[in-house]
């Protein structure tokens, strides 16, 4: 039950993109087409779960016991960067179709602040091992959901008559604002 609450809270109530503002860059950059945003979301979810596992071990089993907390930021970012590289190599070796659909998004994920944010948040909140995994899953699901909804809206927006100055990023941000407003409806759920 506890795990389910963490999952739903990360996915819907405290959605990473729409209420914590993590991962805005890919949210604005990649959310043009539903298909590509779905791939991006899945790749991110995948990396998020692995990051949750690895950074939990790193933080609670290595950094804290040996009193190395000041190395948290550099070690997290290095571990995430090498992890993404490693995942990319494994996927390339194991399955070509998956690599073709997710591969190009993997390098982008390294600089996605949602990943590092996830690692930092789970260390701040002192989650247990399983809680961290569900937190990662929920965050990934929420990220994917926000990205796909946004892509759906933007595909329609292509046809809309937007004022010249508001084309591109400004109208996307305003749309995201309305979407965030809608997500606020979930606020009292937990």
């Amino acid at each position, binding site marked *: 039950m506890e795990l389910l609450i963490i999952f739903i809270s990360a996915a819907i109530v405290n959605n990473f993109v*729409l*209420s*914590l*503002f*993590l*991962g*805005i*860059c890919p949210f*604005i950059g990649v959310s043009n087409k539903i298909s590509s945003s779905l791939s991006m979301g899945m790749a991110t979810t995948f990396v998020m779960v692995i990051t949750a596992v690895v950074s939990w071990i790193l933080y609670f089993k290595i950094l804290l016991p040996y009193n190395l907390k*000041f*190395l*948290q*930021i*550099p070690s997290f*970012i*290095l571990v995430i*960067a090498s992890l993404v590289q490693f995942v990319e190599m494994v996927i390339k070796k194991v399955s070509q179709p998956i690599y073709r659909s997710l591969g190009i998004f993997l390098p982008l994920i390294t*600089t*996605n*602040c949602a990943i*590092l*944010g996830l690692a*930092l*948040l789970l260390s*701040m909140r002192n989650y247990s091992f399983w809680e961290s995994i569900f937190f990662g899953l929920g965050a990934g699901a929420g990220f994917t959901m926000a990205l796909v909804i946004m892509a759906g809206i933007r595909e329609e927006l292509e046809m809309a008559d937007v*004022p*010249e*100055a*508001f084309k591109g*990023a*400004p*109208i*996307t*941000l*305003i*749309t*995201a*604002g*309305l979407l*965030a*407003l809608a997500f*606020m409806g979930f606020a009292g759920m937990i």
Partner: protein
Amino acid sequence: MKKQISYWKEFSKGLWEINPTFKQVLGMCPTLAVTVSAINGVAMALATTFVLIFSSMLISTIRKLVPSQVRIAAYIVIIATFVTIADFVMKAKFPELSKALGPFVPLIVVNCVILGRAEAFASKNNPLRSLLDALGNGTGFLIALTLMGSIRELLGNRTIFGYQLLPESFQPLLIMILPAGAFITLGLMMGLANIYMNKKKKSEIDSVISKYKESKATFEESKA
């Protein structure tokens, strides 16, 4: 060798021409997340500027020593070091601000503005120019964040930097300090900035056309 632009230009281009927020659309996450109040925006921007200045200078100093294959990793470690310093200083000196900014101080490390400037500028220019470029971009970021924070605080809480500016009779717009307000404010600000830029561009084109017409008229006069 291409002509070197002046030091002043190196600094001032970051303020508006390539403003990190409005023109490059980089570093959106902190811009949206921490600008609930003006003071938070200023604190965030100052922390980012600190990291930007020192990492730019260091990266520019060692730019000829780092092999290009591992440069991104090297940059990230340098940036992470300065972020750690900023984070610890803020925790020790301004614990309340540090709490309000939450994970966003450590997240400066993935702020694309910093890596963007390192890759696009500091890795190709000398430390002095990198310092000016970092200062300019940092100031541009500071302007954007202060503006965002002020607008949101004023409309959502009637105050700027804690000083009440709007009368009690003004009903605060709660939405402005909620996440949705952040997106909408930034979207409107970017749109308005674009309108201003388009107008300026148009007036420049108009002035060129009128000059052309003038010179044509004088030319024809002289011919006659």
